[in-house]
């Protein structure tokens, strides 16, 4: 299946990775993530390591059928403002992405046919897929790509989740797209000229807020109002808190062929998972968005298929030195961090459904992960450290969501701190109020979604300028190492910087990051649904048997 002309143009690092794979230095998943991120097609990547591309099941799939999925329907909003994967799963029906992150860790061009990065990741050449049309009949062109980059990089829009993703394309003065940063070379080629190297361009283009919208889309509008997109479906109804229905786009030839399902219905059941089990038992839904904690067993009892995917999704119980005097001192933070046995938290908080982490927010499944020496759990060290700081009698308050594994995990952390002699209390809040101040709580737990590269989460959360920095951490060495790491397209080279990053982050003691979650979902027999590590619903892959 390898196209000779394409193989000749392979990124030089791809060969190195292939050798690493043969030598057993990296896993298949890591190999695929790294090479496809550099623009090697999935087929070519599989070919490099002598494996056949997984058989495309579409040929045998039955066309037709309806699936009902239990998921919170949060309505739709301007994709770049989307703050939940749930929102994107609805507009994903008609809005597509330039690049897609697949459940097996590969990147696949969707609206792009291919892309290439130069050796130091400062220039990307994007090839627009020919033959793609919008569902109003207009062709999809390089102009659409350029226009969407301008939308994404607009830092003046409040809550634009994409704004901080492409620092190399932005004019810092105007906080908008820099002149000459995104160039239309010809009708089907776009070139990105970055001011500094950035390895996260490809994963960022595949993240859920980066859906590509039509030129008629009014910024800030609800995309469901005038659903012009390139995808196979259109929304028939989007009722917030109730349901969303996607049906085949009429009079539209989708470039990808025929998506098997006729209709996808999302049924909202609120936030209580036991209602979801009730709906499943009474045959009101065929699949769910996610199954958590104790409900996994209940759904198994119903005779549904369990779908599992190991991810880099996690929870971080973190202190904030910017909003609280208590955690200004590193020794205090370190003592608190070391007083917690992470494996106990995994067991109590998440029923052991995951892998223990190492308090540095880089997962073994990230391609650039580096192993650093294990930490020693030291509950006995907590009391002296608190006394030394003069806060031994101060009550520490740990805030979390009021329900589910988030609360259980936080409770497990609090209990261990209490056992170690700290005066600590656990405060819970409902989701509707918790997220209002999530960055500012002195000590609280935050869930983090899976991201393909470790540097993505780290640069968002722990650099002094990170837009989702919730710890107040501002370490110049860390910032500098991050700048260097983001310049290295090659994950192996980046690993040296990762040692620095992981060590500093762990040593700063801000975060207790207990485990990596395995994510689960359930589906009724007879339906083919894929569990995606980032909770993406790639509808065209679904079918009814």
């Amino acid at each position, binding site marked *: 299946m390898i196209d000779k002309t394409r193989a000749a143009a392979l990124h030089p690092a791809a060969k190195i990775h292939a050798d690493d794979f043969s030598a057993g230095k990296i896993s298949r998943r890591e190999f695929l993530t790294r090479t496809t991120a550099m623009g090697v097609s999935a087929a070519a990547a599989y070919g490099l390591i002598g494996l056949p591309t997984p058989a495309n099941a579409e040929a045998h799939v039955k066309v037709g059928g309806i699936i009902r999925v239990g998921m919170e329907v949060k*309505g739709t909003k301007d994709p770049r*403002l989307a*703050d*939940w994967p749930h929102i994107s799963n609805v507009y994903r029906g008609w809005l597509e992405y330039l690049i897609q992150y697949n459940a097996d860790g590969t990147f696949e061009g969707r609206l792009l046919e291919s892309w290439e990065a130069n050796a130091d990741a400062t220039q990307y050449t994007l090839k627009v897929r020919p033959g793609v049309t919008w569902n109003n009949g207009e062709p999809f062109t390089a102009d659409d790509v350029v226009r969407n980059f301008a939308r994404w990089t607009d830092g003046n829009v*409040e*809550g*634009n*989740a994409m704004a901080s993703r492409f620092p190399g394309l932005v004019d810092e003065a105007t906080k908008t797209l820099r002149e000459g940063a995104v160039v239309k070379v010809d009708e089907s080629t776009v070139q990105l000229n970055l001011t500094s190297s950035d390895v996260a361009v490809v994963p960022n283009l595949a993240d859920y807020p980066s859906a590509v919208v039509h030129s008629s889309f*009014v910024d800030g*509008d*609800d995309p469901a*109002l005038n659903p012009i997109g390139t995808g196979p479906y259109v929304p028939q109804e989007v*009722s*917030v*808190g*109730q349901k969303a229905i996607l049906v085949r786009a009429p009079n539209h030839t989708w470039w990808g062929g025929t998506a098997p399902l006729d209709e996808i219905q999302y049924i909202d*059941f*609120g936030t209580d998972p036991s*209602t979801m*089990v*009730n*709906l499943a*038992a*009474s*045959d*009101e839904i065929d699949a769910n968005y996610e199954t958590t904690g104790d409900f996994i067993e*209940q759904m198994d*009892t*119903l005779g549904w298929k369990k779908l599992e995917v190991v991810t880099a999704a996690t929870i971080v119980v973190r202190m904030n030195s910017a909003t609280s005097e208590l955690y200004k001192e590193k020794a205090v933070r370190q003592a608190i961090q070391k007083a917690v046995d992470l494996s106990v938290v995994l067991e109590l908080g998440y029923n052991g459904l995951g892998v223990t982490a190492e308090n540095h927010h880089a997962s073994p499944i990230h391609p650039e992960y580096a192993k650093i020496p294990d930490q020693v759990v030291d509950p006995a060290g907590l009391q002296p450290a608190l006394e030394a700081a003069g806060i031994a009698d101060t009550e520490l308050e740990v805030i979390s969501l009021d329900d589910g594994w988030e609360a259980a995990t936080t409770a497990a952390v609090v209990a261990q701190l209490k056992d170690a002699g700290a005066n600590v209390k656990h405060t819970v809040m*409902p989701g*509707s*109020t918790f*997220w*209002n101040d*999530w*960055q500012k709580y002195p000590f609280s737990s935050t869930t983090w979604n899976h991201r393909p590269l470790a540097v993505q989460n780290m640069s968002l959360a722990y650099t002094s300028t990170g*837009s*989702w920095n919730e710890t107040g951490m501002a370490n110049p060495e860390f910032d500098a190492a991050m700048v260097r790491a983001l310049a290295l397209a090659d994950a192996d080279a980046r690993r040296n910087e990762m040692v620095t990053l992981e060590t500093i982050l762990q040593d700063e003691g801000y975060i207790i990051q207990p485990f990596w979650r395995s994510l689960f979902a359930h589906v009724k027999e007879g339906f083919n649904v894929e569990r995606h590590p980032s909770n993406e619903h790639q509808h065209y892959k679904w079918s009814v048997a």
Partner: protein
Amino acid sequence: MLIFIARRLGIMLLTAFVLTFVVFFLTNLPPNLEKLARSEGSVRMSDESVTAWIEQNGHGGSVLTRYGQWLGMVPGWVLTDEKGVTRGRCIAQRQDPAEASRFCGILQGDWGNSTFFKKAVLPSLGEKLGATGWLMLWVMIVMVPTALVIGVVSGMREGTRTDRALSTFSIASTATPEYVSGVILVALFASPVTGLSPILAEWGWIDGKTLFLGAASPDKITFWSFTLPVLTIALYGIGYIARMTRASMTEVMTAQYIRTARLKGVSFGQVVIRHALRNALIAPFTVIMLQFPWLLNGVVIVETLFNYKGFGWTLVQAAGNNDINLLLGCSVVAVFVVLVTQLISDIGYVFLNPRIRIS
């Protein structure tokens, strides 16, 4: 009579006015506006963005002015942003600002837009009230006859075994709040892992996994999905109304004219039906009418528990998301329902009891 009704309507308007102002004031407290900004804009907005959002979406300025705008006595806000786009309270999406009216409040019949539903408040509320109407109707159909029969039967022979048994049942059911009885009913009848359902499924008596459904939808009202929510609300009311009926019945049964009728040789059944019942039902009638406002309250819990998207569920969502217009709409509706049922109750009383004259 007309003066009485007019006075009642006046009180209703006044109550609605005061209540909506209180709700408006509470939903417009700064932290609540911040919450709204975050849910409307983005959860991860910075503080400056939140302040800007509040200003740019007409939530700045004094509470009184904004309440006036909602009422329609103060012109709606209009704002032109730096990009030259003019938006405002009365300007619909893509509408030319010049064509929009100056006032658009409840006095002009404009209930505003719900930020949660992303739709106009009035049609959303209408639809949800309809859904709750069905639920209430079935609750009444189940609750009223059951409660009256229990009350009359236990009240006509005070102190007998039947009376004691029925009274115990009534007290137990009225002492159990919905959030307890609902959970117990779901665990007993609608869970695939506990209660009766797994046993029945094993015996092959039921086709599905559960006997009744633990979730209901207004789109598809069936016996299997409606039994548990209706029963949950009705159980509480049954006990309460039955106790009232019993009290009233025992009082009537000791009256002189009942004894006279018995001494004249009228059969017991005849005495109960022809002589006692009408007088005994006056008190329960008021109680039943009082149940309507209370039902609005009860549906909040039951609709949330059974994921039934009606008025109670809407109220919870509106409060949870600080949806100002929707909450105000809910308040007006609640005031209306409470006072109208009170009015009907007072008027009905006159017909049942000729000794009472209104005005």
